[in-house]
């Protein structure tokens, strides 16, 4: 079976690359002596996949990995055992058994919600509102094959300014990296992009026409 794990990373763990994070999770799983499953073959490695790659510097409160585990294992035990053996800045928040035919979280992620913090929240709120009012926002997108002109507006899905500033953007196949969003806000608001910091609050998927946390199991499954 596979287990879906929601985790957070903060502090020192934000400073590492995606590959480093993968290794750190693997070693934490091994220290916890959890009954993880390994791939077959000459060079077996744990069956482990992440929902979304994370750039150096990004703090998260809601990212996901799926890990293969022996059927006898009780997912309710996962967080406690994992957290006892993981670096203090890495924490499993919730874990559930994945449904038989459930796709890996990587295939389900459609959006991400970020909490934005700034020294000057007033300016940030104004910039965010102004950005969302636009009907289009052209920007230069860096892809593997070079630079491309693109419209950011369809990638901006939601803005909430009660109790802090939260912005939901597309993620997964069409990912809007937080640094790019920061640059846009900075441009619109006329302040330096360094003034904004981000925490990824959750990764979201469409269930029944609504964006829900990836932690929610898909409907059509048992």
């Amino acid at each position, binding site marked *: 079976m596979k287990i879906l794990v929601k985790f957070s990373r903060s502090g*020192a763990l934000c400073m590492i*690359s995606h590959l480093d994070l993968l290794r750190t999770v693997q*070693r934490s799983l091994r220290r916890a002596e959890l009954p993880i499953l390994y791939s077959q073959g000459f060079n077996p490695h744990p069956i482990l996949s992440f929902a979304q790659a994370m750039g150096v510097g990004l703090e998260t409160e809601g990212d996901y990995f799926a890990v293969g585990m022996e059927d006898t294992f009780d997912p309710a035990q996962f967080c406690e055992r994992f957290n006892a053996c993981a670096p203090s800045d890495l924490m499993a928040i919730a874990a559930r058994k994945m449904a038989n035919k459930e796709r890996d979280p990587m295939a389900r992620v459609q959006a991400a919600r970020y909490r934005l913090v700034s020294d000057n929240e007033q300016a940030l709120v104004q910039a965010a509102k102004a950005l969302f009012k636009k009907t289009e926002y052209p920007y230069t997108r860096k892809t593997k094959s070079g630079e491309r002109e693109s419209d950011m507006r369809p990638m901006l899905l939601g803005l909430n300014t009660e109790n802090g500033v939260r912005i939901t953007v597309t993620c997964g196949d069409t990912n809007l990296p937080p640094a790019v969003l920061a640059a846009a806000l900075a441009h619109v608001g006329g302040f330096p992009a360094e003034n904004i910091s981000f925490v990824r609050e959750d990764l979201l998927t469409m269930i029944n026409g609504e964006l829900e946390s990836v932690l929610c199991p898909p409907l059509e499954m048992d």
Partner: protein
Amino acid sequence: MTERRWISKVNKPARYVGGEMNEIIKENAPDLTRFALCFPDVYEVGMSHLGSRILYEAVNRLPFAACERAYAPWIDAEQEMRKAGERLYALESGDTLDKFDVLGFSLQYELSYTNVLLMLDLAGLPLRACERTEEHPLITAGGPCACHAEPLAPFIDVFMLGDGEETICILTEAVKEAKEKGLSREQLLDRLCGMEGFYVPSRYEVTYSETGQVKAITPVAGAPKSVRRAILTDLEHAVFPTKQLVPNTGIVHDRAVIELFRGCTRGCRFCQAGYLYRPVRERTVDTLKEQALEAVKDTGYEEISMTSLSSGDYPCLMELIGVLNGALKDKMVSLSLPSLRIDSFVKNYAEGIGEVRKSGLTFAPEAGTQRLRDAINKNVTEKDLLRTVSEAFEAGYSTIKLYFMLGLPTETDEDLLGIADLATKVISAYYKLPKEKRTQPPSVTVSVSPFVPKPFTPFQWEPQISREEIERRQNVIKQALRTQKRVRFQSHNAGVSHMEAIFARGDRRLADALEAAYRAGARMDGWYECFDYARWQDALASAGLDGAFYANRAREEGETFPYDHVDIGVSRNYLWHEREKAYAANTTKDCRQGCTGCGLMNVCGGKA
């Protein structure tokens, strides 16, 4: 840790934040003795060093002490720290180094000396001991170079010589007592001076002859005539960390480690470690198994390395491999065996080790002809090497790296051509295999580094060849390999080796050159991209010193070495005798097969 905003701006920020698994954080208290282990190189290098892991554990086991870590920041981070007006700090608490009671530097190679100055400077401390006061931490240094680090003498309060795990605890306890009793720095040094393993450089006066050699080293203020290196006699029961730090980012040696034994009995005449760590002290298979299992459990590492200076010499190696394989296979842990000798790589090892990556193997014949290998006492024959590489090719290895030295005493061009010849024969060994046993066409790298004469070896009297001659000899080999398409030639920077040779046998006058070089921007000199030979030449000139005097001069038999007041236990007579045997191309047997009388009989009983 306090917020340090520059961290997110620099390359590899994980170097500067700590937070690793098995990091030890103790709550600060006024009566806590705070020790910062300082590694004068970047994080990835320092974190890979086994000795530092052992000392981290040893000090942290003391209930009254806390040990933290600090590494030299890379150039970009140093610049950011200076811009932000920040001081160098230790990773565990984030407190700046000036708040600690002791800083302990690990001296692994001469070219890291500028980084010692960098770290002191970035910590806001005066570089020279005589400029520091009671307010500043005690500055100590250990590691192999501590036995001859005279160029660092003015900067260090006390050196720790020899095995560190006991010495460092004695020191930490002395610092604690000094604090309690309100002893002055001088009173603390009085206590340490004269104890085995503690060398207080300010208690020795050095005079020089008109021709520049050391004339006399005179102890003052009751210091002993010479200082003996500390030798741990019981490795089996010595402290060994199984909760090894697991970095969050990749480091040079990213695996769990067990230490099979300390010391080496081979007696290669160029090798300082072979003399500096005598006699051999081993751990039993039972203890190693226990430590390996704990280390794997505590670290989660997928690989464990059986380390030592020459792991193939461990008498129970096959038994150990069998035991570990049995215990670790289900846990998906692979074993690795570094520093294999040519004559000890047998097929069984490769098979016993199991799923090792079969990409590359390295061997170190060190010299191209049998005559020269005999002269340096590298007891390896061409036959051994060719048999071993055949076996390796057959076992599926395809890339072989061969390490050689260039400029060894008694070397001629014939020996250089021998290097090319040997590489060619390695290639042929592959094509001699029956077709069905050939796996992948071989590629051989010949890596040649200039010989650096080291203190406490039979070659400490020898000159290093000049830079021009190094380059000429490199070319001889390169030319001889010109037509060999499967052989890649790799040479080392002659300037780097020259500076190493200067500092290895350097005296205290070099301190001025060291400081001048640092002030002119020298740091991270072990990294090619940072090393600047011209800057070092200027620094030497500004101190009125001649590099060739240190590097390229043959010493008289009776010359006083700058480090003559350090007694490593191996007698000077023995070393001189070994040198004479080298010139006669006579070998000396491995002292596991019988004592050769190096001077440590009272420690090992003649049974290394």
